[in-house]
């Protein structure tokens, strides 16, 4: 299963522990170096998908600063999916870098 960058970074945001929706948006932005800016619509569409695929689980709702929140936790399946995607990206990167180096023309 291939994870697209928004899902990849949203799930990666949960590696260090459970986070609520807005915290995921911020953490995914930091982890991606600002390249992934999740909108609320994208976030909840991908969270629903990840929930149905059991990559994450949702906690009970609670109130924080007058907002209703809910924490999401990465499951074992979610970690495996992230690991598989990270290896895929690393392997794809190695292949391209290797070919670029091999065909490098000395300046």
């Amino acid at each position, binding site marked *: 299963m291939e994870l697209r960058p928004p899902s990849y970074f949203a799930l990666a945001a949960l590696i260090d522990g459970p986070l*609520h*929706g*807005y915290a995921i*948006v911020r953490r995914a932005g930091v982890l991606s170096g600002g390249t992934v800016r999740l*909108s*609320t*619509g*994208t*976030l*909840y*569409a991908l969270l*629903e*998908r990840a929930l*149905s695929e059991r990559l994450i689980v949702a906690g009970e*709702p609670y109130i924080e600063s007058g*907002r*209703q*929140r*809910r924490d999401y936790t990465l499951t074992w399946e979610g970690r495996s999916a992230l690991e598989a995607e990270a290896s895929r990206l690393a392997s794809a990167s190695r292949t391209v870098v290797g070919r670029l180096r091999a065909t490098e023309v000395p300046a």
Partner: protein
Amino acid sequence: MTSKRLARLALLAYPRALRASKGEEIVGTLLDASGTSNAAYARELVALIGGGLRVRARTAGRPGAMRLIADGFCYAGVGMLVLNIALRVGERLELRGAGADASLMWMLLLLAGCLSAALIGYDRIAGAGALLSIAINAAQAQFTDLQAAAWAVPAACFAVMLVIPRRQPRRIHRAAWLIPTVALGIAAGGRGPSTYLVLAPLAVVVPLALVRLARDPRLAIACALLAATIAVAETADALQSGSMPIGLPLTILLFTATPLTIAFAARRPHPQRPDS
């Protein structure tokens, strides 16, 4: 209209159940993410509607309870064909050289054709053929009421295969499952205690179905239907031969388990697509 109200209006793009459980949480996240910028708020609103429609599209693609139950009946139909073929192969071996009539061979060929069709992906053909086999059986033998009842569940399964077949890609190589089916019949061989060997695959399938029950109840429905059929057939045979129907309590238990499993499936439609 306040920004919160407008966001709640945009939430209408989401399915009702999700709105009820996470509506406030989504609105809260949207307001946090927009900060004080009107442009960011407008972008968030548009994305919220898009996200809601995406969730709706995916939810609509999920199989409903009816589809899951129908698939369960179809799987049970396939299981009944496997057991029927294995039993008849054993019977044929036993009767070899002792005046085995041609009708048994023809019945075996018809059932093998049905099973191949179902395995490859032609449930309608399999269901029609299997119903025909029941009709031939009924015409040939005088059934007691209970024996006739024992055919009711298989008939229902085959009728579902004919009317609401499984949606699956056609794969000719799956017909190879006929080989272990025939091998099972040869191993079980005829009447006697070894006949029960044909039920050996259930020892693997039933625990698997129970493990998968919460995620995918189709196999559990199939097992419940198969078990109920076997229990009724056993009871009918025991009653006819005049022995104590030890299967009767089991039959009642399994007949109770079947609707319970189906009700469970109906209550909890599974999010996975069939054959995904």
